[in-house]
Protein backbone atom coordinates (compact mmCIF):
# COMPACT_ATOMS: atom_id res chain seq x y z
CA UNK A 1 0.00 0.00 0.00
CA UNK A 2 1.37 3.41 -0.90
CA UNK A 3 1.53 6.15 1.67
CA UNK A 4 2.61 9.81 1.67
CA UNK A 5 6.36 10.39 1.78
CA UNK A 6 8.00 11.35 5.06
CA UNK A 7 8.83 14.74 3.46
CA UNK A 8 5.13 15.24 2.87
CA UNK A 9 4.38 14.40 6.52
CA UNK A 10 7.10 16.84 7.67
CA UNK A 11 5.42 19.53 5.54
CA UNK A 12 2.12 18.86 7.22
CA UNK A 13 3.69 18.97 10.67
CA UNK A 14 5.36 22.21 9.72
CA UNK A 15 1.99 23.93 9.58
CA UNK A 16 0.91 23.01 13.13
CA UNK A 17 1.29 26.00 15.47
CA UNK A 18 2.62 25.55 18.97
CA UNK A 19 -0.44 25.73 21.24
CA UNK A 20 1.19 28.14 23.71
CA UNK A 21 3.16 30.27 21.25
CA UNK A 22 1.15 30.09 18.01
CA UNK A 23 3.65 32.33 16.20
CA UNK A 24 5.93 29.34 15.71
CA UNK A 25 5.26 25.80 14.52
CA UNK A 26 6.11 22.50 16.15
CA UNK A 27 8.94 21.95 13.68
CA UNK A 28 10.30 25.47 14.35
CA UNK A 29 10.44 24.51 18.01
CA UNK A 30 12.50 21.44 17.18
CA UNK A 31 10.42 18.98 19.17
CA UNK A 32 9.58 16.67 16.25
CA UNK A 33 12.59 14.39 16.23
CA UNK A 34 11.67 11.86 13.57
CA UNK A 35 9.03 10.84 11.08
CA UNK A 36 8.93 7.35 9.61
CA UNK A 37 6.75 4.51 8.48
CA UNK A 38 6.41 1.05 9.89
CA UNK A 39 4.19 -0.77 7.44
CA UNK A 40 1.16 1.46 7.08
CA UNK A 41 1.64 3.15 10.46
CA UNK A 42 3.12 6.64 10.50
CA UNK A 43 5.48 7.01 13.47
CA UNK A 44 6.12 10.52 14.74
CA UNK A 45 8.75 10.90 17.44
CA UNK A 46 8.23 13.87 19.73
CA UNK A 47 10.36 15.14 22.60
CA UNK A 48 8.86 17.25 25.39
CA UNK A 49 10.23 20.75 25.98
CA UNK A 50 9.87 20.61 29.78
CA UNK A 51 8.85 17.49 31.62
CA UNK A 52 5.91 19.28 33.22
CA UNK A 53 4.84 21.32 30.22
CA UNK A 54 1.04 21.11 30.13
CA UNK A 55 1.08 21.67 26.37
CA UNK A 56 2.68 18.27 25.74
CA UNK A 57 -0.54 16.27 25.61
CA UNK A 58 -2.24 18.99 23.58
CA UNK A 59 0.66 18.94 21.11
CA UNK A 60 0.23 15.20 20.66
CA UNK A 61 -3.46 15.63 20.06
CA UNK A 62 -2.86 18.36 17.50
CA UNK A 63 -0.36 16.23 15.60
CA UNK A 64 -2.80 13.39 15.48
CA UNK A 65 -5.70 15.61 14.42
CA UNK A 66 -3.68 17.30 11.68
CA UNK A 67 -2.41 14.04 10.23
CA UNK A 68 -5.88 12.53 10.30
CA UNK A 69 -7.20 15.52 8.38
CA UNK A 70 -4.62 14.70 5.72
CA UNK A 71 -6.04 11.21 5.48
CA UNK A 72 -3.59 9.24 7.61
CA UNK A 73 -5.35 6.54 9.57
CA UNK A 74 -2.66 4.75 11.51
CA UNK A 75 -0.57 7.11 13.56
CA UNK A 76 1.72 6.32 16.44
CA UNK A 77 3.34 8.98 18.59
CA UNK A 78 6.57 8.05 20.31
CA UNK A 79 8.00 10.00 23.20
CA UNK A 80 11.74 10.44 23.17
CA UNK A 81 13.45 11.82 26.26
CA UNK A 82 17.06 11.52 25.23
CA UNK A 83 18.80 13.48 23.91
CA UNK A 84 16.90 16.02 25.97
CA UNK A 85 15.34 18.90 24.06
CA UNK A 86 17.53 21.94 23.72
CA UNK A 87 16.74 25.39 22.38
CA UNK A 88 19.64 24.81 19.94
CA UNK A 89 17.14 22.78 17.93
CA UNK A 90 14.95 25.80 17.31
CA UNK A 91 15.04 26.77 13.65
CA UNK A 92 16.45 30.12 12.48
CA UNK A 93 13.04 30.88 11.02
CA UNK A 94 11.48 30.07 14.39
CA UNK A 95 13.85 32.44 16.17
CA UNK A 96 12.99 35.24 13.78
CA UNK A 97 9.27 34.62 14.16
CA UNK A 98 9.57 34.62 17.95
CA UNK A 99 11.31 37.97 17.94
CA UNK A 100 8.77 39.48 15.53
CA UNK A 101 6.06 38.21 17.91
CA UNK A 102 7.69 40.05 20.82
CA UNK A 103 9.52 37.17 22.51
CA UNK A 104 13.30 37.43 22.64
CA UNK A 105 14.81 34.22 21.20
CA UNK A 106 17.13 32.03 23.32
CA UNK A 107 20.81 32.98 23.39
CA UNK A 108 23.74 30.81 24.48
CA UNK A 109 24.86 33.72 26.68
CA UNK A 110 21.85 32.99 28.90
CA UNK A 111 19.99 36.24 28.38
CA UNK A 112 18.35 38.12 25.52
CA UNK A 113 20.59 39.97 23.12
CA UNK A 114 18.19 42.89 22.85
CA UNK A 115 14.69 44.11 23.58
CA UNK A 116 12.33 42.61 21.00
CA UNK A 117 10.31 45.86 21.01
CA UNK A 118 12.91 48.62 20.56
CA UNK A 119 16.16 46.74 19.99
CA UNK A 120 17.99 48.24 22.98
CA UNK A 121 20.67 46.09 24.60
CA UNK A 122 19.97 47.64 28.01
CA UNK A 123 17.82 44.83 29.39
CA UNK A 124 17.52 43.23 32.81
CA UNK A 125 16.04 40.05 34.21
CA UNK A 126 12.90 40.30 36.33
CA UNK A 127 12.40 36.58 36.95
CA UNK A 128 13.71 33.32 35.64
CA UNK A 129 10.16 32.11 35.25
CA UNK A 130 7.43 33.41 33.00
CA UNK A 131 3.96 32.71 31.67
CA UNK A 132 5.02 29.26 30.39
CA UNK A 133 7.79 26.89 31.56
CA UNK A 134 9.93 27.83 28.57
CA UNK A 135 10.01 31.57 29.21
CA UNK A 136 11.58 34.08 31.61
CA UNK A 137 10.53 37.66 32.30
CA UNK A 138 12.82 40.50 31.33
CA UNK A 139 12.50 44.26 31.08
CA UNK A 140 13.95 46.87 28.75
CA UNK A 141 15.54 49.82 30.50
CA UNK A 142 15.13 52.08 27.47
CA UNK A 143 11.57 51.60 26.30
CA UNK A 144 10.63 50.29 29.78
CA UNK A 145 8.52 47.48 28.33
CA UNK A 146 8.55 44.11 30.04
CA UNK A 147 9.00 41.21 27.63
CA UNK A 148 9.25 37.42 27.51
CA UNK A 149 12.57 35.75 26.88
CA UNK A 150 12.63 32.20 25.60
CA UNK A 151 14.97 30.46 28.06
CA UNK A 152 18.05 28.79 26.69
CA UNK A 153 18.29 25.20 27.88
Amino acid at each position, binding site marked *: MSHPSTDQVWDWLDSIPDPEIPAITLTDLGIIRDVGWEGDTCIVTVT*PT*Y*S*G*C*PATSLINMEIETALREHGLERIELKRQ*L*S*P*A*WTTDWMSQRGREKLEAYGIAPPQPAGGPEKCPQCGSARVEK*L*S*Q*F*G*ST*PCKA*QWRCNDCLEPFDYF*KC*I
Partner: protein
Amino acid sequence: MTKAADPKFEALLRLGDNTLILGHRVSEWCGHAPVLEEDIALANTALDLLGQTNLWLEYAGEVEGKGRSADDLAFLRDAWDFRNVLLVELPNGDFGQTIMRQYLFDVFNRLNLTALTQSTDQRIADIAEKAAKEASYHVERSEGTVIGLGDGTEESHRRMQDALNILWPYAQELFITDEVDDAMAEAGVIPHPKSLQDAWDTEVRAVLAEATLEVPVAHFGHRGSGKDGKMHTEHLGHILTQMQWLQRAYPGQAW
Protein backbone atom coordinates in the same frame (compact mmCIF):
# COMPACT_ATOMS: atom_id res chain seq x y z
CA MET B 1 6.40 -3.40 53.73
CA THR B 2 5.31 -6.99 54.27
CA LYS B 3 7.89 -8.64 52.05
CA ALA B 4 11.02 -7.46 50.31
CA ALA B 5 9.94 -5.41 47.30
CA ASP B 6 11.90 -5.05 44.09
CA PRO B 7 14.69 -2.57 44.98
CA LYS B 8 14.40 -0.82 41.62
CA PHE B 9 10.69 -0.24 42.20
CA GLU B 10 11.50 1.14 45.65
CA ALA B 11 14.25 3.39 44.28
CA LEU B 12 11.91 4.77 41.61
CA LEU B 13 9.21 5.44 44.18
CA ARG B 14 11.70 7.42 46.25
CA LEU B 15 12.53 9.58 43.25
CA GLY B 16 8.93 10.03 42.20
CA ASP B 17 7.47 10.50 45.67
CA ASN B 18 10.00 13.19 46.60
CA THR B 19 9.08 15.23 43.55
CA LEU B 20 5.36 14.46 43.88
CA ILE B 21 5.00 15.55 47.47
CA LEU B 22 7.28 18.57 47.11
CA GLY B 23 5.52 19.53 43.88
CA HIS B 24 2.19 19.36 45.66
CA ARG B 25 3.45 21.41 48.60
CA VAL B 26 4.92 24.08 46.35
CA SER B 27 1.71 24.25 44.33
CA GLU B 28 -0.11 25.25 47.52
CA TRP B 29 1.47 28.68 47.04
CA CYS B 30 -0.34 29.22 43.75
CA GLY B 31 -2.19 32.52 44.13
CA HIS B 32 -0.67 33.23 47.57
CA ALA B 33 2.96 34.18 46.97
CA PRO B 34 4.18 37.61 48.17
CA VAL B 35 4.69 38.98 44.65
CA LEU B 36 3.47 37.93 41.22
CA GLU B 37 6.91 36.89 39.92
CA GLU B 38 7.39 34.55 42.88
CA ASP B 39 3.93 33.14 42.44
CA ILE B 40 4.71 32.28 38.83
CA ALA B 41 8.13 30.92 39.73
CA LEU B 42 6.71 28.64 42.43
CA ALA B 43 3.94 27.39 40.17
CA ASN B 44 6.46 26.68 37.40
CA THR B 45 8.76 24.85 39.79
CA ALA B 46 5.84 22.75 41.02
CA LEU B 47 4.94 21.95 37.43
CA ASP B 48 8.47 20.77 36.63
CA LEU B 49 8.48 18.60 39.75
CA LEU B 50 5.13 17.06 38.84
CA GLY B 51 6.37 16.44 35.30
CA GLN B 52 9.38 14.61 36.70
CA THR B 53 7.07 12.68 39.01
CA ASN B 54 5.07 11.47 36.06
CA LEU B 55 8.20 10.09 34.37
CA TRP B 56 9.46 8.37 37.52
CA LEU B 57 6.16 6.86 38.63
CA GLU B 58 5.24 5.74 35.13
CA TYR B 59 8.46 3.75 35.03
CA ALA B 60 7.96 2.53 38.60
CA GLY B 61 4.60 1.09 37.56
CA GLU B 62 6.19 -0.69 34.61
CA VAL B 63 8.98 -2.13 36.76
CA GLU B 64 6.45 -3.33 39.31
CA GLY B 65 4.57 -5.10 36.54
CA LYS B 66 1.12 -5.01 38.09
CA GLY B 67 -0.35 -2.61 35.56
CA ARG B 68 -0.35 0.41 37.85
CA SER B 69 -0.07 3.76 36.08
CA ALA B 70 1.64 6.89 37.42
CA ASP B 71 -1.81 8.17 38.39
CA ASP B 72 -2.66 4.95 40.24
CA LEU B 73 0.55 5.24 42.24
CA ALA B 74 0.04 8.91 43.00
CA PHE B 75 -3.63 8.84 43.86
CA LEU B 76 -4.38 5.39 45.21
CA ARG B 77 -1.62 4.61 47.68
CA ASP B 78 -1.90 5.35 51.35
CA ALA B 79 0.62 7.17 53.55
CA TRP B 80 2.67 4.10 54.51
CA ASP B 81 3.26 3.29 50.83
CA PHE B 82 4.95 6.63 50.18
CA ARG B 83 8.74 6.70 50.01
CA ASN B 84 9.51 10.42 50.20
CA VAL B 85 11.79 12.02 52.75
CA LEU B 86 10.11 13.94 55.55
CA LEU B 87 11.65 17.23 54.40
CA VAL B 88 9.28 17.49 51.44
CA GLU B 89 6.09 16.74 53.35
CA LEU B 90 6.61 19.40 56.02
CA PRO B 91 4.15 22.28 55.84
CA ASN B 92 5.34 25.26 53.82
CA GLY B 93 5.73 27.62 56.75
CA ASP B 94 6.39 31.17 55.60
CA PHE B 95 7.82 32.08 52.21
CA GLY B 96 11.36 31.95 53.58
CA GLN B 97 10.91 28.43 54.89
CA THR B 98 9.48 27.31 51.55
CA ILE B 99 12.47 28.75 49.69
CA MET B 100 14.98 27.30 52.16
CA ARG B 101 13.46 23.81 51.78
CA GLN B 102 13.47 24.26 48.02
CA TYR B 103 17.13 25.20 48.03
CA LEU B 104 18.21 22.28 50.25
CA PHE B 105 16.27 19.89 48.03
CA ASP B 106 17.23 21.49 44.69
CA VAL B 107 20.95 21.05 45.28
CA PHE B 108 20.40 17.40 46.20
CA ASN B 109 18.09 16.89 43.22
CA ARG B 110 20.59 18.38 40.78
CA LEU B 111 23.51 16.34 42.13
CA ASN B 112 21.42 13.18 42.19
CA LEU B 113 20.00 13.66 38.69
CA THR B 114 23.40 14.51 37.25
CA ALA B 115 24.78 11.26 38.67
CA LEU B 116 21.68 9.38 37.48
CA THR B 117 22.45 10.36 33.87
CA GLN B 118 25.19 7.71 34.18
CA SER B 119 22.77 5.03 35.37
CA THR B 120 23.18 1.54 33.95
CA ASP B 121 19.42 1.64 33.42
CA GLN B 122 18.97 3.56 30.18
CA ARG B 123 15.42 4.68 30.95
CA ILE B 124 16.54 6.18 34.26
CA ALA B 125 19.48 7.88 32.54
CA ASP B 126 17.14 9.39 29.94
CA ILE B 127 14.68 10.73 32.50
CA ALA B 128 17.55 12.15 34.55
CA GLU B 129 19.02 13.90 31.52
CA LYS B 130 15.73 15.70 30.99
CA ALA B 131 15.12 16.51 34.64
CA ALA B 132 18.69 17.63 35.42
CA LYS B 133 18.30 20.62 33.11
CA GLU B 134 15.25 21.72 35.06
CA ALA B 135 16.88 21.14 38.43
CA SER B 136 19.79 23.35 37.37
CA TYR B 137 17.66 26.43 36.94
CA HIS B 138 15.67 25.57 40.05
CA VAL B 139 18.91 25.77 42.03
CA GLU B 140 19.87 29.02 40.34
CA ARG B 141 16.71 30.66 41.56
CA SER B 142 16.41 29.16 45.04
CA GLU B 143 20.10 29.83 45.72
CA GLY B 144 19.80 33.47 44.68
CA THR B 145 16.69 33.90 46.81
CA VAL B 146 18.26 32.27 49.87
CA ILE B 147 21.23 34.63 49.59
CA GLY B 148 19.02 37.65 48.96
CA LEU B 149 16.78 36.97 51.94
CA GLY B 150 19.50 35.67 54.28
CA ASP B 151 21.72 38.66 53.64
CA GLY B 152 18.70 40.95 53.50
CA THR B 153 16.82 42.88 56.12
CA GLU B 154 16.88 42.10 59.80
CA GLU B 155 13.52 40.42 59.52
CA SER B 156 14.26 38.40 56.38
CA HIS B 157 17.56 37.26 57.91
CA ARG B 158 15.82 36.14 61.10
CA ARG B 159 13.18 34.24 59.16
CA MET B 160 15.76 32.48 56.99
CA GLN B 161 17.81 31.53 60.04
CA ASP B 162 14.66 30.15 61.70
CA ALA B 163 13.87 28.20 58.55
CA LEU B 164 17.37 26.75 58.40
CA ASN B 165 17.20 25.73 62.06
CA ILE B 166 13.97 23.83 61.41
CA LEU B 167 14.97 22.24 58.10
CA TRP B 168 18.66 21.41 58.47
CA PRO B 169 18.08 18.21 60.50
CA TYR B 170 15.47 17.04 57.97
CA ALA B 171 17.86 17.62 55.07
CA GLN B 172 20.23 15.08 56.62
CA GLU B 173 17.69 12.34 55.87
CA LEU B 174 18.58 12.70 52.17
CA PHE B 175 21.82 10.89 53.02
CA ILE B 176 20.47 8.16 55.27
CA THR B 177 20.82 4.90 53.42
CA ASP B 178 19.52 1.35 53.57
CA GLU B 179 19.81 -1.94 51.70
CA VAL B 180 17.81 -0.59 48.73
CA ASP B 181 20.41 2.14 48.20
CA ASP B 182 23.24 -0.34 48.65
CA ALA B 183 21.82 -2.84 46.17
CA MET B 184 20.91 -0.26 43.54
CA ALA B 185 24.22 1.60 43.86
CA GLU B 186 26.07 -1.69 43.60
CA ALA B 187 24.22 -2.41 40.35
CA GLY B 188 25.05 1.08 39.04
CA VAL B 189 21.37 2.00 38.82
CA ILE B 190 21.59 4.95 41.23
CA PRO B 191 24.47 6.80 42.88
CA HIS B 192 24.91 5.88 46.52
CA PRO B 193 23.36 8.79 48.45
CA LYS B 194 26.44 9.00 50.67
CA SER B 195 28.56 9.64 47.58
CA LEU B 196 26.64 12.89 47.05
CA GLN B 197 26.93 14.14 50.61
CA ASP B 198 30.31 15.87 50.44
CA ALA B 199 29.44 17.79 47.28
CA TRP B 200 26.07 18.79 48.76
CA ASP B 201 27.58 19.83 52.06
CA THR B 202 30.34 21.91 50.48
CA GLU B 203 28.04 23.70 48.06
CA VAL B 204 25.24 24.34 50.54
CA ARG B 205 27.53 25.57 53.31
CA ALA B 206 29.24 28.02 50.95
CA VAL B 207 25.92 29.49 49.90
CA LEU B 208 24.58 29.66 53.45
CA ALA B 209 27.77 31.47 54.49
CA GLU B 210 27.22 33.96 51.69
CA ALA B 211 23.66 34.34 52.95
CA THR B 212 25.19 35.18 56.38
CA LEU B 213 23.34 32.25 57.92
CA GLU B 214 24.69 29.97 60.57
CA VAL B 215 24.43 26.23 60.00
CA PRO B 216 23.04 24.59 63.14
CA VAL B 217 24.70 21.60 64.69
CA ALA B 218 21.92 19.04 64.44
CA HIS B 219 21.21 15.60 63.09
CA PHE B 220 18.10 13.88 61.76
CA GLY B 221 16.25 13.08 64.94
CA HIS B 222 13.54 10.66 63.83
CA ARG B 223 13.88 6.95 64.51
CA GLY B 224 12.61 5.91 61.09
CA SER B 225 12.85 7.32 57.61
CA GLY B 226 10.24 8.20 55.00
CA LYS B 227 12.42 6.44 52.44
CA ASP B 228 11.13 3.02 53.45
CA GLY B 229 7.73 4.23 54.61
CA LYS B 230 8.29 3.22 58.22
CA MET B 231 8.13 6.83 59.31
CA HIS B 232 6.08 9.74 58.08
CA THR B 233 4.98 12.87 59.83
CA GLU B 234 1.30 13.50 60.47
CA HIS B 235 1.44 16.05 57.66
CA LEU B 236 1.62 13.49 54.86
CA GLY B 237 -1.89 12.18 55.55
CA HIS B 238 -3.27 15.69 55.32
CA ILE B 239 -1.60 16.20 51.95
CA LEU B 240 -3.08 12.96 50.68
CA THR B 241 -6.61 13.84 51.75
CA GLN B 242 -6.35 16.93 49.54
CA MET B 243 -4.43 15.37 46.71
CA GLN B 244 -6.37 12.14 46.46
CA TRP B 245 -9.94 12.95 47.42
CA LEU B 246 -11.23 13.26 43.88
CA GLN B 247 -9.89 9.88 42.74
CA ARG B 248 -11.10 8.33 45.99
CA ALA B 249 -14.58 9.83 45.75
CA TYR B 250 -14.98 9.37 42.00
CA PRO B 251 -12.67 6.50 40.98
CA GLY B 252 -11.37 6.58 37.44
CA GLN B 253 -12.22 10.21 36.71
CA ALA B 254 -9.98 11.61 34.00
CA TRP B 255 -9.08 15.18 33.02
